[in-house]
């Protein structure tokens, strides 16, 4: 394949130090040749836009002294996320099967610790570990671990899910989910529901089981809403999008959030107010705008052009994950991709849907856009898994 006259095509790479990266590079059929650049490009574009909008929402009003702390931190989170994504791709995803029991138990212990009182409380939830200037949110890590664990289990069952195996799979998801619900973190709990439904459907669960589970889920949500398990504010947020004004609620906050979010997006129009020019954004009228309501800043300042582009990029990401699920070499790869896709699509739909008043308000971050370390890191690791499956679809 190489001639003596010209240096071999990959000869320079032989000088790369031994190691995982080196090993793969040396192989002409290396998985690295099959990395999904469309996905990577989309993710990086959305992350960059996220940083920009976080800056717009947090820089404050003093032109001589803009607050850049949120921008810098989020930049750091994205950089860390890219590294974590790369690291995730280094090891063949099939080897994660062997590691997943350890990770699963580790995450369970973290969740137990955080609920048992070691966690710091913020906004009514015990969901964080304080690590110096940063907070670690174990429930975000739990999402990755549960996706891999459930995929491994279903693949192990060879996709033949009878009732007993189904129960096992449900238990695997149910335990961490219950702990997260105790925090309480309703949004992440619902992500788990979406992830397991998606994976069970693709994993071969019988239709009647799925129907039964759905029924149980609906009844369960009804019971939870009426049982008093939820704080009043949670109930109000969940029901405010229905636009029936519940008198019991101090519904003002929830309705205010929603109204101002819709006003911000709606006032953007086709071309938007211009970057940094949105009055709803600049004047702090929309609450939580750099985190859960980041989409309103895009809508107001960049208009339909900008928000539509963002939606398009997010759909491209979804499309590439779905495509990878199809191309995957084995059920494990498919299931991992479907888990990630379920999580991603649910978060996107729920988050953007709530800012536009078609979904209930729950605290779910918009992947790659919302400010936050744990959620950004998790999103990148998940994408690392998908890239991993994609690049190893031939090996």
């Amino acid at each position, binding site marked *: 394949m190489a001639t003596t006259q010209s240096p071999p095509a990959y000869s320079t790479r032989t000088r790369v130090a031994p190691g995982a990266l080196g090993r793969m590079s040396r192989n002409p059929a290396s998985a690295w040749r099959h990395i999904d650049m469309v996905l990577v490009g989309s993710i990086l574009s959305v992350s960059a836009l996220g940083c920009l909008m976080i800056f717009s929402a947090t820089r404050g009003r003093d032109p001589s002294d803009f607050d850049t702390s949120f921008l810098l931190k989020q930049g750091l989170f994205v950089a860390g996320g890219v590294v974590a994504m790369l690291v995730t791709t280094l090891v063949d995803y099939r080897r994660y099967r062997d590691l997943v029991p350890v990770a699963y138990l580790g995450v369970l212990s973290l969740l137990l610790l955080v609920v048992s009182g070691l966690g710091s409380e913020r906004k009514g939830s015990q969901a964080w570990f304080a690590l110096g200037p940063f907070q670690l949110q174990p429930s975000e890590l739990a999402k990755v671990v549960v996706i891999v664990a459930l995929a491994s289990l279903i693949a192990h069952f060879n996709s033949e899910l009878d009732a007993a195996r189904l129960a096992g799979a449900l238990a695997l998801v149910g335990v961490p989910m219950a702990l997260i619900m105790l925090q309480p973190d309703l949004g992440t709990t619902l992500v788990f529901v979406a992830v397991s439904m998606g994976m069970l459907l*693709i994993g*071969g669960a019988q239709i009647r089981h799925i129907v039964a589970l759905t029924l149980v889920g609906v009844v369960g949500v009804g019971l939870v809403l009426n049982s008093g398990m939820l704080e009043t504010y949670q109930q109000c947020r969940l029901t405010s999008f229905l636009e029936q004004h519940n008198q019991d609620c101090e519904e003002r906050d929830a309705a205010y959030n929603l109204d101002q979010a819709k*006003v911000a997006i709606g006032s953007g129009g086709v071309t938007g107010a211009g970057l940094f020019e949105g009055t*709803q954004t600049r*004047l702090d*009228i929309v609450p939580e705008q750099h985190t859960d309501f980041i989409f309103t800043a895009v809508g107001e300042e960049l*208009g339909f052009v900008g928000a*539509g582009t963002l939606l398009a990029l997010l759909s491209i990401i979804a499309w590439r994950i779905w495509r990878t699920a199809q191309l995957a070499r084995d059920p494990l790869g498919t299931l991992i991709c*479907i888990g990630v896709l379920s999580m991603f699509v649910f978060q996107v739909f729920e988050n953007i849907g709530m800012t536009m008043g078609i979904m209930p308000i729950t605290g779910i971050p918009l992947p790659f856009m919302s400010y936050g370390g744990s959620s950004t890191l998790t999103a990148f690791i998940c994408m690392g898994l998908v890239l991993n499956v994609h690049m190893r679809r031939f090996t």
Partner: protein
Amino acid sequence: MNQDSPRLRLSIFGIVVFSLFAALFSRLWYLQVMTNDDFEVVAEANRIREVAVEAPRGRILDRNGTVIVGNRISIQVSVDRSVLRDLEEAERTEVLTQLAGALSRHSINTTVEDLEARIADQRFSPYVPVPVAGRVPEELKIWIDEHAEALPSVSAERVAVREYPYGRLAAHVIGYTGKITKEEHDAKGDAEKPYTLNDEIGKTGIERIYEDDLRGHPGTRQIEVDADGDPVRVVAENAPVPGNDVVLNLDVNVQAVAEQALQEALSRAAERPPSRADLPNVAKVGSTVVLDPNTGAVLAMASAPSFAPSEFVDGISTSEWDYLNDKANFHPLNNWAIQGQYPPGSTFKPFTAVAALQSGLISPATTVNDTGVYEVPSCTGGTCTFRNDGSRAYGPVDLRRSLTVSSDYYYYDLGARFWIEQESFGGPEVFADRLKQWGFHNDTGIDLSSEQDGRIPSPAWLASYCESVECNEDSATWRTGNNVNMAIGQGDVLVTPLQLAVGYAAIGNGGTRYVPHVVKEVRDGVSGEVVSAIEPQASGTVEMDPAWRQAIIEGLIGVTTREGGTARSAFAGFPHETYPVAAKTGTAQAKDEAPTAVFGAFAPAHAPQFAISVLLEESGYGGSVAAPVARRLLDVLSGTVPMPTFNEEGVLTEAPVLVDGGEAID
């Protein structure tokens, strides 16, 4: 992944994902493209707050440009009732105790009870904080600002308030201002210059009548606010425009002389022995008006008792308000010159004389033998015998002498003949109609509020009156005696002091009745240019043969100059040769009270520059009590006595010297 095709499930999953994104796109399109306009409006409203910027109120000046009402900045302490109401009982008491203590420390002696009474006062609008103290020192404002946390509901603000350099001077004419009431606010809903519930508005007098001129055009400031409503920056500003200045016909010096002379005359009347021992001279209420007979300009208008408009600045105290509205204090807020209605007594005789001359009942030379006691011819009921004061007989009396000595007999006879001979000149209403030519029975149309109409009775009036009020058979019948009483300004005749002055002005100027005007012109508050000037406005004329007028004027000059003239002693020493004064005294009798002293005059008699009316309730004889007020005014107006001027403290340099009219006859 066997069973039903896993490929199918994956495709279905893909379709679901696609649908969800499609839903988000649709919703985004709906919000940003289809309903975008609605949201833009809301976003703008979120962002912008509009606040009114108060404009300075126009000033009120006298005819020479002297400022009678100006503006100054006052620091005002207010309590927000709605905030106070929400406090715990103990906390509320603590706040008020603290505030009362702080005010008292700064020499505004206040108790918690005072504050509570003030805050409970229903006259303050429920929508804005109640002012509890004005003119507080800067240190107190600083103290309140520093203790804002401990003093919820209490605030100290700088506000522009009215300033009165001359104190009470012309209080009734200029009126006062106060916080707008809900009703006034609603009535001014579509005013060109919008009001907020915190605005001041003119309540009486010129402040009220010229409200639309005096009020400045409030500016607006559009402020961008953040989510908490805290201001971020000023987006746009519309500067406030000061109100227009109102220039009065009043002269502060003449006004001051009028007020001092009036007050002095009342004090002296109270000291004089009453004509009947059981009817003391109360002498608390009086008024005087000085007009320019050629234009209707009001040069001075005084009413007693009076009030200080400055009491209303920063909100009038409850006790002061109650005092001003207590009947026992003779209603100091009332302008008796236009709101008081009195029988004019003998000052009415010139008008009766003109009516008789017009009707051909007499000529100036007609002589009547005054025997002192008048018997109504063929009397059918009611009073049949009328007497001169003290039944004094004046013998043969012509028109001139009837006025000079004030012969009642002469006018009793005219009154009776108006009734008895009515067929020869047009009927029972003619007497009243001729009297109404002078403007009686209707308001004069002066530019002040609450003016009264007065009354000229007649058979027709009595009939309609007895329809609304129950009259007994005796009082319901118009008899000769009613006309007899009417001829000397008694009975049911009522005039306001202003109407009397207008009537005397008309006699003096040859028969033209002018609408009296307090305001001379309105000037732009910034440039000083005249915006509108009030032109003299005739409201009617009275036909007078020059020979009649000549006789009447001679008779009236006799009042102040001749032997037997009823105001001769009051005008003793006056330069009559160069400055003759035509005048008439009146002493109106009322049941069970001391007589009301009345005086009407114009001077110089043949080309008058001033017409004056004076009226003192329950004070005695017109010649001895009311005439000296006019004398004092004419002393300075004629230049006989130098016009007193104000020193820097706003006090007249010279107290008036009133001549004592002596024991005059009427």
